[in-house]
């Protein structure tokens, strides 16, 4: 409800944001699309020529692509699983009254402040290193053979690192949601004779569904493009064991200077991300801001 005048100003006020984002989306996107049809290597300037779908053929038939796709899905789903389940339990715990709530909350949030490169380096060297890492010391203490995490279980290790970074976020959102739960509803169900587990399942969890949606949406946005953690720890290896799509395309374009191939990969990544995005948007469309 407003006047023509205010609607006109509203359009003017929103346009910088819309135009900038539209440009940000369309210009590089159309360039990527264009390059993806060219044979274009930065090491051989001036040799660009139209090659049709060749780049796509190479990219999609490259066994590395399939590995990267699987790794991406595993990485996203793995981290989501760990953080959502861990987050629900942590939030349940932190929602109880205890001494020093403020300090513990700060401790739990802290990993979110740590930049990906730092957390990857710290975990890689100081914890997962098979010789000097704390885990190695711990294993030796129990008389076990030290385990080389990043060589033997690279993807799982990366999932662990990334989960540590995002657990605080999930916990915090779920905790906020718990705190907004109507106490009278819980008390009413207690009067009705529902045991704790049923109260958790039928009242708390449904109440959390919106918060869980938010966690999944926002984390997926960031998890699809996990990059620094891989760059710093495994460089995608060994082989392609921990290469996700982002990293694969990065290697193709900036390490092998194959702009055409990298662009084709970029287009594929965008299409895949869009499929996920449509799926997610449907979900929040229903669940968010209703």
């Amino acid at each position, binding site marked *: *409800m407003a*006047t023509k*005048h205010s609607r006109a100003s509203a359009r003017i006020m929103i346009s910088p944001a819309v135009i900038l984002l539209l440009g940000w989306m369309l210009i590089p996107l159309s360039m990527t699309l264009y390059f993806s049809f060219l044979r274009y290597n930065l090491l051989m300037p001036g040799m660009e020529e139209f090659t049709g779908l060749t780049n796509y053929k190479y990219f999609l038939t490259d066994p590395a692509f399939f590995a990267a796709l699987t790794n991406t899905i595993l990485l996203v789903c793995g981290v989501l699983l760990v953080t959502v389940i861990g987050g629900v339990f942590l939030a349940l715990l932190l929602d109880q009254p205890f001494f020093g709530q403020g300090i513990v909350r700060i401790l739990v949030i802290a990993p979110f402040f740590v930049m990906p490169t730092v957390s990857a380096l710290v975990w890689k060297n100081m914890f997962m290193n098979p010789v000097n890492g704390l885990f190695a010391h711990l294993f030796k203490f129990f008389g076990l053979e030290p385990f080389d995490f990043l060589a033997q279980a690279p993807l799982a290790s990366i999932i662990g690192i990334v989960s540590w970074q995002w657990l605080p976020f999930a916990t915090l959102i779920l905790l906020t949601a718990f705190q907004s739960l109507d106490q009278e509803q819980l008390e009413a169900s207690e009067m009705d004779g529902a045991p704790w587990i049923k109260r958790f399942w039928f009242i708390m969890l449904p109440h959390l569904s919106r918060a869980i949606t938010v966690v999944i949406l926002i984390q997926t946005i960031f998890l699809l493009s996990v990059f620094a953690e891989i760059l710093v720890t495994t460089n995608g290896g060994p082989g392609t064991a921990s290469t996700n799509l982002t990293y694969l395309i990065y290697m193709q374009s900036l390490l092998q200077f194959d702009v055409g191939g990298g662009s084709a990969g970029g287009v594929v990544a965008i299409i895949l991300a869009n499929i996920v995005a449509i799926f997610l948007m449907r979900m929040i469309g229903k669940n968010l801001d209703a």
Partner: protein
Amino acid sequence: MGRITLDKVSKAFGDVEVIPPLDLTIEDGEFVVFVGPSGCGKSTLLRLIAGLEDVSGGEIRINGQDATQTPPAKRGLAMVFQSYALYPHMSVRKNIAFPMRMAGMPKDEQDRRIEAAAKALNLTDYLDRRPGQLSGGQRQRVAIGRAIVREPDAFLFDEPLSNLDAALRVGMRLEISELHKRLTTTMVYVTHDQVEAMTMADKIVVLQAGRIEQVGSPMELYRSPRNVFVAGFIGSPKMNLLTGPEADKHSATTIGIRPEHIAISSDAGAWKGTVGVSEHLGSDTFFHVTVEGFHDPLTVRASGEVALYYGDTIYLTPDLAHLHRFDAQGLRIA
């Protein structure tokens, strides 16, 4: 000067017409109340006058000048909102000063007007507080103060008392009426409460579904409601409305008789009924009487205390001089 003329003003939101074209003149210095049930378009009409909404058709003239396209701030009107709409981050003084600050008024003139308004509204001790530290009535006064200092051509009030408790509401009602007598500035006041309308207005505009049902002074509306809707809306408790054989006797489709125009007797009268619930207010007593053959119970007023109890038989006689007759269209038969 504050003469507001609405000429065939209409408003539609999309395909929904909330106000069909209507004409209305508000004279300079008048206290006009828009009254009607919720959703009748009274607030929308006020917002059209304020310029917070565009009209879909017609013309709004203020002091004879076409103001239809004039932005709200340039119309010379001040508005008091239902939620008071005070700026929570500013002190009372800054709140009141805000319109003058926006107009670029000299500082000493601002201070002079703030002091005057604060004195008139008993806010002098609160000038440095934030709205959050004030009571509902005080917030209301700050909102009025913010309107007064602009010395507008007309004040617009949008249900200003609906957030106050009952006792405070009566007090503020008097204060606003007194303010109007003192300033003699045009005031347009929106409410759903017909008691506010009756007690404050020079002129009442009764609205229903965006249409004006009747315009007139409170007593005109009370004495000769133009149709069944107005008859039922104005007056407290509500007028008794009867249809069927009883109305036929008076050659009307509907007849209306106010509770205060029915005489009661314990032995003889036109209608025989049974006393239901009675409400004792001290000065008056209201009986809800079930009369055989009538669809709804009648409400009857008796002055003082009357010894009638639940289940007693009662005889009622309407005062025919105050009987209202309406035709099949619901319009008054003269």
